[in-house]
């Protein structure tokens, strides 16, 4: 049973991380890039209206950071629960 519990805890840690990543993913793309883009456009980042920047540049940079962050956090979760590859 111990291994079963361990597997369960591993999976819920994984899902917890997934939720965090997906929330950020949603906020920068659909949130800042689409739903609130108009409101954000009244702010500027250099010569970029902010909503436009998120839609055409910013969300992509955040996506990259998100994947690498996710990969490194997953590596930690793997090791914590002894689930890493040999």
């Amino acid at each position: 049973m111990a291994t079963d519990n361990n597997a369960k805890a591993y999976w819920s840690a994984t899902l917890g991380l997934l939720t965090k990543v997906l929330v950020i993913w949603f906020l920068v793309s659909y949130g800042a890039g689409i739903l609130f883009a108009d409101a954000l456009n009244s702010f500027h980042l250099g010569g970029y209206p902010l909503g436009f920047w998120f839609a055409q540049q910013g969300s992509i940079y955040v996506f990259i950071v998100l994947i690498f962050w996710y990969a490194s956090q997953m590596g930690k979760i793997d090791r914590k629960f002894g689930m890493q590859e040999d």
Partner: protein
Amino acid sequence: MELQTTIYIFVGLSFALYLGIAFWARAGSTSEFYVAGGGVHPIANGMATAADWMSAASFISMAGLIANLGYGGAVFLMGWTGGYVLLAMLLAPYLRKFGKFTVPEFIGDRFYSKTARNVGVLCLLVASLTYIIGQMTGVGVTFARFLGVTSDQGIYIGMAIVFMYAVFGGMKGITYTQVAQYCVLIAAYLVPAFFISLNLTGNFLPQLGLGSNMAGTDVSLLSKLDQVVTELGFSEYTTTANGSLLNMFFYTVSLMIGTAGLPHVIVRFFTVPKVADARASAGWALVFIALLYTTAPAVGAMAKMNLHGTMNSAVGLTTGPAGQLRVNPDVLKANGDLYATEASLVYEERPDWMKRWEKTGLLKWEDKNADGRIQYYNDKSKNEVAKGKADAAGWKGNELTVNADIIVLANPEIAKLPNWVIALVAAGGLAAALSTAAGLLLAISSAISHDLIKGAINPGISEKGELMAGKISMAVAIFVAGYLGLNPPGFAAGTVALAFGIAASTIFPALMMGIFSKTVSDKGAIAGMLSGLFVTLFYVFAHKGLFFVKGTDFVDMVGGVNGFFGISPEAFGTVGAIINFAVAFLVSKMGAPVPRHIQELVESVRVPKGAGGATGH
């Protein structure tokens, strides 16, 4: 040296490189043929994925699309990159752990059903075949433009080249060839963008240039562009959405989950050694893709600026000593009258690149008010001020039509860059088209040889026999793709919508439910995939005609073009996916529960421990 000679040299050298690599990395076993032996470094795999993913359309058409759509172009930028986040987290590591060769194989095993596997093969073939038609026509057009052959001859040459390196090299050859192709295509995309950004803004990085002031002024490029296009009656560049906000939302979702569900992309993640590598590799793929995708908005906006500046001297661009476009700060700051008679370009004084592109028919001028000058504005504008000014100036309609595809291909000519840059762009466009075609062909051939022949027709086939079957089906697939490229069913524009819609509404939900749910059963998955497929096909055909035959559209049945909340057919994959999920859960609830050993399979897929190399059995 002559431009044409330089192009021959660049294209010839790049092809020699690809074929050399294919020979060096030729496949000897099914494992090497399908998953490159499973030993590809995550960074190399990232580059190969990026080349695989960025098609002729990304390379040639996307910047033009963004230039036309402005802010609304974000659906492509976010949709085609955000999918990698989903891929990295929801699919790639788990499918890598599952450790088989193909996507239908996972669907068949997880849903313990040959029918589910065959439905998976069907969806994969429809998605990949529709996608490849566009690639082959792209190969034909690019060869025709740069090598001076006909478009048909271009397709034959393309078929021969893909045949040589894809059939002999398999996944191993394709992967390393694509690494080389990525380098060629990204260099070809960035070099002209650097020059143009430097000319317009003084900042050579296009990503920063797009957010900078025009050189020598304190007016930002985007605000200047907004001002010029709205004055000429076009919609504002930085705010105009692509349809309604709801449509933009659905469109982006559809492209994201479609990207994550496209089989030729997923298969890439079977080629890395470890589960952890599959996660990081998606990140590397996105880094390499983002190099092009964050440059494209700058290329689009700057090309639009250059075009307006060339046609209308009141914009404030002028020709520098070497012939390249430069900012004229005083004119630009003065915000002169765009409707002044002398502002419009005199046709006889047009630059050489316009003469060259007029020959291709992609750029046209028609002197509607017979004044010998080019008036370029939006004559269908709802902007009364712009309309009034145009009427007062005696303009009788827009006189210039520009095909959006010109923007990337003509960019170096517009900016008067050296011949080697133009030759590089030619080689890059071909690399983009060929690499994607090769990746798609491999996905198709493995579905046929591995999933149909070995999986359903002749399970006892030897490895040697399967390898031969793989090569033969690849060869057949090349001929089918070439035939479809030569005789495109007349719907090139609709095909991409269909490919993404099907991947989004069938493959992505099936894979997700297979990994994240232990309760979705065989019947649930089959019913879900079929209903997602049907609903998406129904809606796309409603708008574009039954099997894209003109005149057979039945758009009134779905409430007209603006029916169903104004969602465009390209965005409808999202609705198909929602229906797929809902049907699958409902049907699973009603039927028998998932067997114990399948639940254990799902549990083992979820943990990286014990992942071996990818195998066929």
